[in-house]
């Protein structure tokens, strides 16, 4: 078990090392978050719509779009100079490779979620008086569900001639549970409703995240093997 976790971490560590050295994905995702914040700020008539009332939708739509931008290129690194062949020739179980990729994507997207909260709080003066632990749980489960699906599908589309343009078409329908339960729970938390009203959505979100992660880990071998 320790060895398996070590393999997962080796893949994630390598991805994070490359990312924090080049800032390729973080820069493009970070710039995109700020741009979306600016666009929402100028396109929204705050005399008619209270940003606080639609905070959950703003946050989750931004997570989905910025995640799609960043996670679509998950396997681009492996396509350079044939590195994927090197990994496939090694004895690493393919589900460990997948989980390593999920872990690095989860960390990168979590950094972006923190930035989204900061940017949107600054632009729209969002007030949050709900349960912060519950919000953390909702965002963490939602991000895990999202990255587990996008990591699998980015492996599928990496070798497709349509590539990343195909990814949103394939993945948006499958993301429905994440968006549905994520926005509902976040909305209630921003409205400072009691935790009991969020528990059901949070449980479903967690269940989807776990099911997606395990199912995608199993399916990954069929995607990556030639």
């Amino acid at each position, binding site marked *: 078990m320790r*060895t398996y976790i*070590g*393999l997962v971490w*080796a893949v994630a*560590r*390598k991805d994070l*090392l*490359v990312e924090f*050295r*080049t800032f390729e994905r973080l820069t493009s995702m970070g710039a995109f978050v700020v741009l979306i914040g600016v666009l929402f700020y100028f396109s929204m008539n705050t005399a008619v719509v209270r940003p606080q009332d639609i905070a959950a939708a703003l946050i989750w739509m931004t997570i989905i779009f910025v995640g799609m931008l960043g996670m679509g290129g998950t396997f681009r*690194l492996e396509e*350079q*100079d*044939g*590195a994927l*062949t*090197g*990994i*496939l*020739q*090694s*004895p*690493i*179980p393919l589900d460990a490779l997948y989980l390593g990729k999920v872990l690095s994507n989860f960390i990168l997207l979590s950094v972006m979620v923190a930035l989204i909260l900061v940017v949107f709080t600054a632009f729209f003066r969002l007030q949050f008086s709900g349960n912060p632990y519950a919000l953390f749980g909702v965002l963490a489960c939602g991000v895990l569900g999202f990255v587990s699906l996008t990591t699998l599908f980015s492996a599928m589309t990496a070798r497709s001639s349509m590539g990343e343009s195909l990814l949103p078409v394939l993945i948006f329908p499958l993301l429905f549970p994440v968006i549905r339960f994520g926005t509902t729970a976040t909305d209630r938390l921003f409205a400072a409703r009691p935790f009991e009203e969020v528990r059901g959505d949070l449980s479903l979100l967690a269940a989807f995240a776990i099911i997606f992660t395990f199912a995608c880990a199993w399916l990954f*071998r069929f995607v990556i*093997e*030639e």
Partner: protein
Amino acid sequence: MTCGLEAAGLVRDFGGVRAVDGVSFQLQPGELLAVFGPNGAGKTTLLRMLAGVMRPTAGHVRVAGEAADVAGREWRHRVGIVSHQSLLYGQLTMAENLFFYGRLFGLTDLKTRIPERLAEVGLSDRAQTPVRDLSRGLKQRVALARALLHDPEVVLLDEPYTGLDPHASAVLREQLTLLKDGRRTVVLVTHNLKQGLELADLVAIQVQGRFASVANAADLDQAGVEAWYHATVEASP
């Protein structure tokens, strides 16, 4: 005696196209097989099946007597691969690349092993250089260090000389000569008849997926191998 590497009736189809068509051979430890052939003959596909990164449509591979199933992972400890691509991450240093691959192979003594391997390919002083800053020749030497990091019994070389200048080719050839230590089994796929023949014990010409002809390297000289190669390729339908 257990074969170092055995391929039996290997076939690989892509849709309706047969890329590898019934290739069989047995190599003992210490032997080096050079596979020549025109573009599209299926040489790289053959090597990918031997490396376990591609599933054969039919046939099987055995590494030191162990069935080399694509789904199986443990036998991969016995195989190393050098390709015309470096299989390395340009953004990472040589040492970081070797550390990453070492972890994938479950190696624990990387602090001593990595400097040893880099010393063997003459790159001890460049361990902290990012791979993207290296010349093509140096990249291939790191790729060789990566392939030998886990001390494999079988080494597969796919066009390792591609894109190298004459000096870099000569340096790499010296490194590859060291693989003939009597312990490793090596398969070299190349277009370069001269370089292949210099290293090989056995030579095969692959045409349209099949081994059209196989010979002992000792029976061929430079002129003879070229004549034999052209005659075999032209005689194939």
